[in-house]
């Protein structure tokens, strides 16, 4: 999968370029994940993880 270096918002893992296994567009932002499991977890509790991603970039 094509992706920039980023952090998986669910498990906190640093994902190097191209390391993401799945991604999701949520409220206009792109999120990249280490696994299908982390993406599914994000989809179940988006408010928890999206919030965390936001506060880290601020």
């Amino acid at each position: 999968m094509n992706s920039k270096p980023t952090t998986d918002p669910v498990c906190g893992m640093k994902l190097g370029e191209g390391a993401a296994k799945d991604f999701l567009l949520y409220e206009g932002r792109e999120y990249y994940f280490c696994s299908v499991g982390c993406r599914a977890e994000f989809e179940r509790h988006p408010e928890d993880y999206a919030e965390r991603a936001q506060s880290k970039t601020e």
Partner: protein
Amino acid sequence: MCRFLCYIGPEILLSDLLYSSENSLILQSYKSKERKEPLNGDGFGVGWYTPEIGPTPCVFRSLTPAWNNQNLQRLSEHVTSSCFFAHVRAASPGMRVGEDNCHPFQCGPYLWMHNGTIEGFWQIRRRLRASLPDHLYNSIEGTTDSEHAFAVFLNLIGDIDRKHSTSELGQTLVKTVAHLEAWTAETKSTAPSYYNFAVTDGHSVAAIRYVSDPKVEPASLHYAAGRKYECANGVCQLVDCDAGEQSVVIASERLSEDNSHWTRVAPNHLLTVSKDLDVNVELMAIERRDSAFDLLAEWRQDSRAMSN
């Protein structure tokens, strides 16, 4: 499905850990919040370490519900340790209710707890047992899938008297799941297995939150690290502290409503805690070679691509 709790950090009183937090394990035994069925009354168990006496832990298990066991209350008010495992049980269908089947299970310096079920256990039981050397085969006292999984772990860790590193503990736990998955993949069961396991040797802790089908929600598991478990006026909570006072708590349910102190263990990830309380989270490298799941995943991917 059950509820469990691990504590590692400065010495604390067992009763403070079990009874005195906002959503304590005792409360979870009769009104758990993150399970559909709130009762976990098919027995309980606690294990703890006393390094000044020896490397093996003490275990107290009982068949009564944890919420009305006076002996547990009395005993816990006089037990302190820097490493506790505690479990309240809701027996899975087909699993006998009995003291032998209560967690934590103990062998040598190890304690083991499980929240979940091995799907297709009765179809793999004979093969699982046949893989064990005599001493481990004979060490299985109860009938649960959980205790059998522990025997697989002990077989993989090898010499139980040798001290293993935190990473060895964690990787052996992952290997245990890989073995269980390889066996169950050959059964006819299509439902996923749920493996929330915790294991300790009294020095480090390894825990996983795992489900065979990564699209399915695994059983809940949370952790809180870098805070002190502090009690004042009969209420205990996790508070900010100096480095020397920090602890790590791993629990099926958060012990307090304050979400900012708690992190969900990511699905199908391994959480390890070293003696120095270094916490590490990593993805479990397990491929379940099960055509049913692969086909399902492919079908979902296709339908997602079509809807985009």
